[in-house]
Each structure stands twice: as structure tokens, then as C-alpha cells.
């Protein structure tokens, strides 16, 4: 057992070589190495993020991400000049797919941050304080959960003017209750742990108990769930755009591009294929990361 280190370690070991230090910052690192899906997913995900960040410098026609029209070169098939071909107004699809990473990732980050903040706040308050606050907060959460999430998002996005930002808000609106439930369950079980009693006996204030003990211990499963959800959010955002309720042209949003390419699927396959593939790749990458993290943090596998 490498974990059961003996009582007396040589003092020189305290400094530790780099790999040991990484394990200290994040104790799960040692086990992360043993989950190949997590590595593959992280690499793919990092590529998508990098592509989005570096889009203006790595794309051949950055101006095509915006409202430009090239009437002379509409619907050109993939070639050396246009790797993914051009769309119906002549814009370079490779450029637009790469820029699309920005839009999709922006939506994912926005939805995750908003729903995690709201969900954790509501859930931790309910689970930690219990009593009537718990009942009120959880009944409100249940009301949100009572509607089919996609339908509620669609309805909300339809009320707001269609844009990527509004689509993100509509998705976050239906997304946070899941985190609230998860966080509530965690907080309620943490409250019964010995270390919660210990904190009280030591005289920790409620704020300190929440911030130092409940939040860090409740957050892990929520983070894992967030990484699992990233793929779902990309798909939902794409769905809203596809239905015309999300990003609008000229925004290079993958779902929107698929919708625009659909009538041309038989004559210009590249218009729909490449953005569709981008959605698939990103969703798979995030799913791998989520599954991998779940494996790493699953206490039953004893890897944590």
C-alpha cells in the first residue's frame, strides 16, 4: 500500500519532487492518471478551448465570422483554400466552425456559472439550515423541476428576443434546480458527519462551517455533474439555435449553422456536416471528462 506511509518518513522527503507536489495540490491526481477517458477528454476539450481562444489567429479568413458576403464564392466544396467549403453567402466554414467554439463555450460557461452559483446557494442553504427554509427552497426548486427542462427553455427563449445570451439565460433558468437538489443532499449529509459536529464543538461560526467545511465537501459532486452537463448544454444551446430561438446570423453558432445547412444537406453536404461534427466532438470531449471525473471521485472505487 503506497498510501499507508509509515509513521516516520525521512525528513528529506518533505520537499518532495514535482510529481508529489501535484498530488498534494490535488490528491486525486494519482488516480486521474489511471483513467484514460479523462485524459482523452481533457486533451480534446483543451483543443476546443484553444481553438476558440486563438480563433482570430489560426483561421484563414477571420472576417468571415461576421456579417460579410462573398457572392462570387457561395457553396464551394471543401478545397485547399476552404478546408470545410463555403456557405450560402460565401463565408469560409472552417473559420466559422472555429469561431463557433467561442460562442458554444461562452454559453456553456455562462450557464454553468449561473446555475452553479444559484444552485449551490439555494441547495446549501436548504441542506445546512434545514427546517422551514429547507421546505420553502426545495418546494420552489420542485416547481422548476416539474416542467420538462427543454420545453421551459424553449418557452422562455421564445419570450425573450432571440440571441445567444438570451438562450444561455433560458437554459440556466432550467438548469440550476438540479444543482440545488444535489447540493442540498450533500449539505444535509455533511451536517450529520463527525467533522461537522467537530467544527461546532471547536466554536466555528455558521458562516465558517458553511464556507470551510460544507461548501468544499458538497462542491465536488456538483463539479463532476457540471462537467457531465457541459455536453448537454452545448446540445441544448444548439437545439435552441436550430429552432431559431438562440444565436442569429451572422453569429457563427454551430446549431444555427446546422439549421441553415439543413435544406442544402443533399446538394452541399459540407455546410451541415462540419458544424455538426464540431458539436459531436465537443459533446463527446466533455462527456469523457465528466465520466472520468466521476470515476476518479467515486468513493466506491477508493480512488479519491
Amino acid at each position, binding site marked *: 500500500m503506497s*498510501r*499507508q*506511509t509509515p*509513521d*516516520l*518518513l525521512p*525528513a528529506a*522527503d*518533505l520537499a518532495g519532487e514535482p510529481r508529489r507536489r501535484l498530488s*498534494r495540490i490535488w*490528491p486525486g491526481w494519482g488516480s486521474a492518471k489511471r483513467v484514460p477517458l479523462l485524459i482523452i477528454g481533457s486533451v480534446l476539450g483543451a483543443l476546443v478551448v484553444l481553438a476558440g481562444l486563438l480563433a482570430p489567429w489560426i483561421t484563414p479568413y477571420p472576417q468571415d465570422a461576421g456579417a460579410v458576403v462573398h457572392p462570387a464564392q457561395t457553396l464551394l466544396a471543401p478545397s485547399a483554400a476552404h478546408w470545410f467549403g463555403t456557405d450560402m453567402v460565401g463565408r469560409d466554414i472552417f473559420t466559422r466552425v472555429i469561431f463557433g467554439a467561442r460562442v458554444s463555450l461562452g454559453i456553456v460557461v455562462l450557464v454553468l456559472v449561473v446555475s452553479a452559483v444559484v444552485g449551490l446557494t439555494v441547495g446549501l442553504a436548504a441542506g445546512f439550515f434545514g427546517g422551514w427554509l429547507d421546505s420553502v427552497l426545495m418546494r420552489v426548486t420542485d416547481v422548476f423541476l416539474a416542467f420538462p427542462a427543454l420545453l421551459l427553455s424553449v418557452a422562455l427563449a421564445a419570450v425573450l428576443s432571440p440571441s445567444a445570451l438570451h438562450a444561455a439565460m433560458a437554459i440556466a433558468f432550467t438548469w440550476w434546480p438540479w444543482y440545488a437538489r444535489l447540493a442540498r443532499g450533500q449539505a444535509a449529509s455533511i451536517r450529520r*458527519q*463527525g*467533522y461537522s*459536529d*467537530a*467544527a*461546532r*464543538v*471547536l*466554536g*466555528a*461560526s455558521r458562516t*465558517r462551517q458553511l464556507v*470551510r*467545511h460544507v461548501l*468544499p*465537501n458538497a462542491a465536488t459532486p456538483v463539479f463532476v455533474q457540471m462537467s457531465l452537463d457541459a455536453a448537454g448544454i452545448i446540445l441544448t444551446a444548439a437545439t435552441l439555435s436550430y429552432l431559431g430561438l438562440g444565436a442569429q446570423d451572422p453569429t457563427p453558432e454551430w446549431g444555427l449553422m446546422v439549421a441553415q445547412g439543413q435544406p442544402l444537406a443533399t446538394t452541399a453536404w459540407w455546410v451541415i456536416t462540419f458544424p455538426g461534427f464540431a458539436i459531436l466532438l465537443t459533446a463527446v470531449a466533455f462527456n469523457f471528462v465528466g465520466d472520468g471525473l466521476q470515476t476518479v471521485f467515486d468513493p466506491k472505487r477508493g480512488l*479519491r
Partner: protein
Amino acid sequence: MSDLLLVQGLRLSYGEREVVHGVDLRVPAGPYGLGIIGESGSGKTTIARALLKLHPAGSGSVTFDGADVLALKGSALSAYRRDVQLVFQDGDGALDPRMSVLSSVSEPLAIHDTVPKAQRRERVAALLDEVGLPIDIMTRYPHQLSGGQRQRVVIARALALEPRLLVLDEPTSALDVTVQERVLQLVEGLRERRQLAYVLISHNLAVVDRLCESSVVLYEGAVMESGPTRDLLDSPVHPYTRALRSAVPEIGVHRPALTRITAGASVPSTGCPYSERCPLVLDICRAQTPALRDVGGRQVACHRADDVANLLA
């Protein structure tokens, strides 16, 4: 002699069900050990939780150093938290899995701000040294420690505030025999070095015998017998104490069972709570709850205490 901790007529309930029916405890200033002996379900842990204000008291009084503990609030409660600390039954669950040993042990120092930030690391090192742990354990997390190491970390954390009273709830029951011995030696050492008073909760008579001047035997939330530990164990008067005493296995000794210990016997609603299991039971035991009274230098709650005492004499 003034008492550090005085508990009188303490009653505790879970919802409608009362689990502790009027318990008296007395702990003089340290070094002194009071043992609470009883099997699981006897209300020992609930008493410990009530002493630490983790469980609300139904009625009765708890006085610490002259102050009414049950009424403590705000800064007075905070001061009480510095003076009275708990060592948990299960060292594993008592440590936050996401906190290093350094963070865990220095947390009380941070909460009460008794030690300046810059000196906390040094203080933690001294505490770890005191409980016999290597200093480099500071950077480890609970799952990287053995059960005995975790229990010592819990003790170090409890000592950080220099408490005057320690409540030890089954501190060794989750540990191997050899590790138990080291934890017991640690408590013995602390007791003399720190002039510590403590309440030790255990089902292990040998542990109580070694560490506690006086003891209380608890059955179903009521005191059966209390007095000096030596008297209690050498010449138990209450049939329940006698049963506990005879149930201790000793190597090479085949002691005939004095009485049957029937696990899961029902608790009668009237009379002596032990009457269902007692070999000396009379009609009066079932009809009337015996009060604690002095019998041969100790307190016994038994209608037949005099008969047993005469038999022994």
C-alpha cells in the same frame, strides 16, 4: 472541593422518546477522570453530545466552573468551547476529508484567534509532537493516515485550545489493541502534564479502571451504580455492574457467569429498567423504580443492594 463540572438530573430526549432519565455527574478540577460505563444504546454518547451542547437538554442542570452551561450564548458559549473539548468515537469521520492535518489542528486556533497566524504552524508542530506524531504528517490528508494516527490528530486538535475538561467518547473502540494502548498512555501522560480533567465514555471496563478515579454505570439512560472505580469493579453491588464485571474475558480464567446477559431484552415501562434481565428480580423491582442511595461508600439504584452487600461482606 469545588466541582469543575456538575450535572444534576439531566434528562435528554430524541423527539418524544426520552433516552436519558435524570443523570448526575461530578468532575472535580483535574487531574481527574470520570468514567461513564454502559453498553451501546445506554445514552452515553447522547450525554457527551449534551455536555458539548450538540444535543439540547430536556431538563436538569449542567454547571461548569459555576456557570450554567445550558443557558450559555454568544461570547460565554465561545469561552466554554475553549474550556471543554470533545474527542470523538471515530477519528475518521471527525476530520474533514478535504483538510490537511495542519488545517484541521490549526482550525481551533484560527476560530478563537488564540495564537497569531505566524505562530500557528509552530504551535501545531508542538501539539503533534505532544501526541506522539511526526511533524511531517502536517501536510497529509485524513485518508493518508492510519486509524491510530487520525485519533491522535483529533486529540491534538482538541488540546489546541488548552481545554480544562476533555470529553472522550469511546476514544479507543475503533482501534487495534496495540494502538489502543498507545492512545491510553497518551491520555495518562496528558492528564499529569496538563492537569487535565476528563469524562471518559467507554464500554471497556479495563480502560475506565486505568484512567478514571470514579465511574458511573449507565443502563438504559439511568444510573445503576456510581462511586470510586476500584470499589465498583472490585466489589460491584448492582446486579448489572456484576454482570458487566463477569462478562470481561480474562485469559486463563474461566469465570462462571454470575448472571445471564440477555441482549435485546425489553425495557419495562415501570419499575427498575434492569428488572427484565436481572437474576435477583423481585416483585417490587417490577413495580417501583429504585432510587439511588448510599450503600457501602457508593451510590446504587437497586432494591436488593443491601442483600448483595451483605452477601459480599
